[in-house]
Every structure is written in structure tokens, then in C-alpha cells.
């Protein structure tokens, strides 16, 4: 059995979590969109899914008169993402070992 989180596992959500984990506490929506390469609607959809399970917090506000949206990983989301990446690393190492044994 492995501990891959099914909510984080799809590539767009993994990408979004990686962006938020690497960024400052709060990341602006447009920064997340530009770095992930997701469209506005796809980013909103995945962010809402992650918000639904408590991994991401979404905050709306304004800078001057311009509406802005900020995203952040919650402590739960951060720990689940770290566990997910650790599992991916373990699985990748396992696959590499298997490939080496097969060659030998």
C-alpha cells in the first residue's frame, strides 16, 4: 500500500500544490496561474476542490479598486503535500531499483 493522496495526485492539483508550497504564505491567483500554466477556470476548479478537503484556503480582497484572489496551503495541505511527495520519491526509488535488478 502507498500513501498517495487521491485529491493531490492529479497532475494539475499536484502542480498547484507544488506552486503554493514553494511560494510565500499567500500566493496571488495570477502568480499561481502563470507558474502552473493552468487556465483561470481550471485553476479555480482545482483550487476549490483542494479547498473542499481543507488543503487550500482561498481569500478574496482588493488592491486599490482591483479585485484580487490569494491562495495558500493550509498546514494540513502542506503536510499532506509533503507526505505525497515523499511517497512519490519512495515509489520512484523503488522503480529505479527494480529496473537496475532487471538489467542485472
Amino acid at each position, binding site marked *: 500500500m502507498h500513501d498517495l493522496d487521491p485529491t493531490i*495526485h492529479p*497532475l494539475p492539483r499536484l502542480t498547484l500544490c507544488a506552486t503554493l508550497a514553494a511560494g*510565500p*504564505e*499567500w500566493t496571488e491567483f495570477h502568480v499561481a496561474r502563470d507558474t502552473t500554466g493552468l487556465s483561470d477556470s481550471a485553476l479555480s476548479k482545482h483550487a476549490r476542490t483542494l479547498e473542499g478537503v481543507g488543503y487550500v484556503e482561498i481569500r478574496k480582497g482588493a488592491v486599490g479598486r482591483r479585485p484580487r484572489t490569494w491562495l495558500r496551503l493550509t498546514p494540513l495541505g502542506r503536510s499532506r503535500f509533503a507526505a505525497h*511527495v515523499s511517497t512519490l520519491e519512495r515509489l520512484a526509488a523503488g522503480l529505479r531499483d527494480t529496473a537496475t535488478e532487471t538489467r542485472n
Partner: protein
Amino acid sequence: MLDDPEEGLAAVRRQHEAMAARIHLPLWYRALFAATWAGVLAGPLLARDHDRFGLPAFPYWMVTTALLLVLLLDYRRRSGLHTLVRSRTYPALREQVVPTSAVVLGSVVVVWGLTLLGLPYMAGSCALLAGGLASRQVWQVNRAIRLDVVEGR
């Protein structure tokens, strides 16, 4: 869904690198920071001895301090520290506390001390040198934060 864990790890690495690439200080920023910090340090000296340096009377200290505040606010954004509520505590920030404090406090003590001792040319030279050191230090902090982001710390 991802079938290959390597693909997922590569995506994570790409995002770290993309976020790290946003954190950089352009050369103009570093030059302006050096000049501004030198100006803040030399402000009291220039207020008193501007004739000696062939400069007109001008509120140097007030203007350079205001400019420094603007640059520091901009630095938060350029260094990945720009946040709505609070900054993330990058490990790099803790590591850089001592050198940053040494540069800031050291330059204030030396330049203002020389100003008080009535050594304007030495104080002016030290202010220029301190500007260069401060600029190097903000770049070092920026570089360390970028490394934290790439490494996923």
C-alpha cells in the same frame, strides 16, 4: 492521473524552479539600493556639510529614507515575501539574520560615528562602501530565499 512517480516529481521540481525564477533582484534595483542606503547614512552629514561637498541644501535624509521604505516594500515582492498577512519564514531568513544585522548596525555605527567625530570625508567614503555592502547583502538574502524555494524547504 499520474502513473509514473518520476513524472510527478518532475512536475514538482518544475514548479519550484518556476517560483524561484520569479525571485530576483535586477541590477538597477541593487544599484538604487546601494545609492539609497548610502544616502540614508550620509543624510545627517550632508545636512551639515553639504557646502564642503559642493552640494545644494536639500532634505537628503528624508528623501533617501522615504525611497528606502519604497525599495524595502518592493523587496518583499521581489524576494517572494509579498504576503497579505504575514511572511513565510524561509530558513534562509534565519541564516541571514546575523550578517544582515552586522551590515545594517555596523554601517550606522561607523558612518554616524565618524560624522559625530567631525570626519566628513571618511564618513562619506564609509557611507559609499556601506551602500555597496548593503546592496550585496540584500542580494545574498534574495539568493538564499531562491535556493530555499528550489530545494522546496
